[in-house]
């Protein structure tokens, strides 16, 4: 199974994302922002970082990169797409996910290990978790406050599209403690914390993040 990891100018976590894909048993494929080519991958991950220096708004410029046209087309045809941190911001700017990620409510850069509850284990990226499982993975962001209209939040809650929720404290003031959401199909998911940094207890707080990468490999095999 080939899973792509996109590199934009300013992306930081593409190599850890590729390492996580490999650790889960997938073939990691490097994708370049300037190439309108997904190289035959079965799923795509937009890793974290500060694409284009977060100029204008986080993710606002990356959203128009040549590779994103292909990502948007593929997502609409059902390809699993995951946005982590800056990647989540890019997916919101691209309109693949609703809402926006704004400056943390406390105005501080947050960098710590964070407990999350897996609220939906039926998405393409979460089937390896038990429903309601609590996991601990790192979070590190400046613009992580999920914001949306009340009607959008109600829709996400009503349709079970809140995939991850912060527990043990809300690190950034996100509405309803939302850490991650999905599109209506459950194949496009975005989350602020970093599962790719928690695939091995040697280098992270846990190996709880590995389930994300194992899940998508399952979903591609079963598709």
């Amino acid at each position: 199974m080939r899973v792509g990891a996109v590199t934009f100018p300013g992306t930081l976590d593409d190599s850890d994302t590729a390492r996580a894909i490999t650790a889960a048993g997938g073939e990691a494929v490097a994708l370049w922002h300037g190439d309108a080519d997904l190289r035959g991958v079965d799923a795509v991950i937009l890793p974290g970082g500060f694409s284009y220096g977060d100029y204008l708004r986080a993710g606002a410029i990356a959203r128009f990169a040549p590779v994103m046209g292909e990502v948007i087309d593929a997502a609409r045809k059902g390809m699993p797409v995951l946005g982590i941190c800056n990647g989540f911001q890019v997916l919101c700017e691209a309109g693949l996910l609703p809402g926006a990620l704004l400056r943390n409510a406390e105005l501080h850069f947050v960098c710590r290990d964070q407990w999350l509850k897996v609220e939906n284990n039926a998405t393409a990226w979460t089937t390896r978790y038990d429903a309601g499982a609590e996991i601990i993975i790192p979070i590190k962001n400046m613009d992580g406050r999920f914001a949306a209209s009340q009607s959008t939040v109600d829709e996400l809650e009503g349709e079970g599209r809140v995939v991850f929720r912060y527990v043990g404290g809300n690190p950034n003031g996100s509405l309803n403690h939302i850490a991650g959401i999905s599109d209506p199909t459950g194949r496009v998911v975005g989350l602020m914390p970093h599962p790719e940094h928690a695939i091995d207890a040697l280098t992270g707080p846990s190996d709880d993040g590995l389930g994300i990468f194992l899940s998508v490999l399952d979903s591609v095999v079963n598709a």
Partner: protein
Amino acid sequence: MARVVVDVMPKPEILDPQGQAVARALPRLGFDGVSDVRQGKHFELEVDDSVDDETLAKIAEGFLSNPVVEDFVVRRVDS
């Protein structure tokens, strides 16, 4: 050539912690009487006369602002 100004502001219902931080700082600096501050972005564009209002609106709505959380105002000014 004309100068076009685009002002982008967080929607009223969106929490603006940066504006709040500025508002809280003012009394500490000895400036009383400011009850609220909201912080946005101000863009100045130099545009050819061929660029019409519809195009400017597309630029403002599709790129300079995020309509999910921000409002914008476009105006032409004398340069």
